[in-house]
């Protein structure tokens, strides 16, 4: 149950190894409370759980796979609530980033759409139903600025995010008056394992900055939040640009980006690349 100062007690992260998701969870439960990490890889979850556990902050893990049938997600939410009480905040951090050129065939497109769109959509639906029934709670959906203006190089990813974003906002509307709420988060480019090695566009940010922004707006009434905030007006402007101009901007940015790319220490980059490779391993 969220307290009178707006602090949640129980946070569920779907996509337990999502760096942005973890950063948001840490922001919302700085000292105490219960964090439930739900994900596919038990070893990675256990390692994350150990890292995030504090004297007063207990971290539990549950199995969750966005590719599993919808009933599994419904059950997962029921189990989490039965074990740990009402879910105050559910963070949906499921998704992979694959460049369009890396999608070898049609099956690869199917798979990425399943992971980035169908699975998360079912999770939004199941979570909304549970939050509506418990009469309170916030679902934080990690969308992307790519949902607002899709780039050719990340077409499938952008389309999936755009659809998820639209669906989550629609479900959020349907929750009006129920005490529950959906908050759609549209970060720009965030430095994480998922984006390691990609060219960095302007307004690149860090996971903890996205988390801080979410923390600030969580107790308010916002339905959509950009991180960094400046991306709000920027994306509005980009959306209004004629396609021809946008294409040229996009191309120019891709050409220019590698020159100023990745200021991080080499070791960091290597680690990031290694974990990326790990993620892309066939499952």
């Amino acid at each position, binding site marked *: 149950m969220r*307290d*009178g100062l707006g602090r949640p007690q129980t946070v569920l992260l779907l996509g337990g190894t999502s760096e942005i998701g973890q950063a948001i969870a840490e922001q919302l439960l700085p000292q105490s409370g219960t964090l439930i990490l739900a994900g596919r890889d038990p070893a990675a979850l256990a390692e994350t759980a150990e890292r995030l556990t504090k004297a007063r902050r207990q971290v539990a893990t549950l199995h969750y796979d966005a590719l599993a049938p919808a009933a599994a997600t419904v059950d997962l939410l029921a189990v989490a609530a039965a074990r740990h009480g009402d879910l105050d905040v559910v963070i949906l951090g499921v998704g992979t980033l694959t460049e369009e050129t890396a999608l070898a065939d049609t099956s690869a497109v199917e798979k990425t759409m399943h992971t980035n769109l169908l699975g998360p959509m079912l999770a939004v639906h199941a979570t909304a139903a549970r939050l509506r029934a418990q*009469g*309170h709670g916030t679902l934080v959906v990690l969308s992307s600025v790519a949902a607002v203006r899709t780039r050719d190089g990340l077409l499938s990813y952008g389309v999936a995010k755009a659809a998820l974003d639209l669906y989550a906002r629609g479900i959020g509307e349907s929750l009006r008056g129920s005490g529950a709420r959906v908050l759609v988060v549209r970060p720009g480019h965030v430095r994480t394992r998922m984006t390691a090695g990609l060219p960095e566009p302007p307004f690149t940010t860090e996971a903890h900055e996205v988390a801080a922004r979410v923390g600030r707006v969580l107790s308010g009434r916002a339905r959509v939040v950009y991180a960094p905030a400046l991306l709000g007006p920027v994306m509005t402007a980009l959306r209004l640009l004629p396609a021809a101009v946008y294409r040229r901007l996009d191309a120019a940015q891709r050409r220019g980006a590698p020159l100023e790319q990745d200021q991080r220490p080499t070791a960091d980059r290597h680690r990031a690349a290694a974990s990326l490779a790990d993620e892309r391993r066939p499952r």
Partner: protein
Amino acid sequence: MIGGWGRVTGSPATVVTPDCDEDWAELLGAAGPRGLIPRGGGRSYGDAAQNAGGLVVSTMAEASIGDVDAAAATVEVGAGVTIGDLLRYLAPGGWTLPVVPGTAAVTVGGAIAADVHGKNHERHGAFGRHVAAMTVLTPAYGTVEMSPTVNADEFWATVGGLGLTGIIRRATLRLIPLASWWVSTVDEQQPRLHRVLDRLHAASVSSDHAVAWVDPLGAGVITRATTARLGALTPGRAARTRATPTLPGRGIAWPPLAAAANAARRTAVVLRPRHLRPLSELHFPLDSLPGWPRLHGRRGLVQHQFAVPFGAEHVLAYALQAAREAGHPPSLVVVKVFGEANPAPLSFPGPGWSLAMDFAADPALGPLLDRLDERIAAAGGRVYLVKDSRAHPDLIAAMYPGLARWRAVRALLDPDGLLVSDLARRLRLADQRIDDQIGASHA
């Protein structure tokens, strides 16, 4: 949305007001998976009388007041009768309640469920001490008669039980004679906290009512009140209430404004230390400003009231100092003296000091009050559950050593956990699993 008086909590629920025995008979069956919780006047500061996604049962239709039994000095009343209405009803006959909380809008049911106290705890204890008997609707046994002699464990679990053991429908209350509706009060200033406490302790023994207001630096004003020997028994008109706007930002808790208000209060004491007041004005200072939470800004008001044993005065000083240094001086600080506790496991008052601080709700208060709670628990003190909106569940068992005993009685009266509030969820009051964990870690 059903919220608390402090305006910091709120959740949607279906409110029902049963007004006949048939309604009451069907009530428990109507509770869904989110359960139900009784609600009286809605004057708890936090989330004690709200139930997200569930049922909230208003007792306000249980408003009958019986005739005073002069021989036994008791009266039987419905749980929905407010303290203010009851006092006005009793006064012309020369009777009054021994214990009266800080607002007239509290119902008898709420007063029992929170085991409220007045400004005379040293003399008369808390509200539950004066309940001769009560009729409680429980999930397991239906309507149960309880008193300190019949079903005593159930009785004391329900006193201070926050509505989680059953729904109080009627109660028989013990009365004391009333000589006059008027009280004479004397205000006295003291520049240091320890002097305030000394004088307050002396006053609580020598006067009918005693309370101290202190500023964030520890200087304070002790108010002693004694019932006038003469004067009419008939209550005058209820005090006029003032409309209040929602102030911007932290409102009256904004430090310069709070400092000005404190200075004004001190000046008033110097100008006129003695008053003859109607009883209602002494008992219910809050009722002349029903918009007090609004004055704390859009986010509302968080009150933190705690009690510590005598000898733990350093915790009082720490509370004021920590709030001041964190840049969140409270807008109002009230100190009282408590006497002997009653046998209710979740009753708040116990021998020692009580300090209540009003704050404008602000996320930055979280760490400040959490640290304070640690000190309170370590000193053998506790926070007042019915006013709480932010305490940490792990500390409650340390603050209320009778919690396990209370849970055992509750498990008998409500084995399926039908009675549940947002406060119970947040503090995990009914949660047996915490006990299991403690049991496991001890084993």
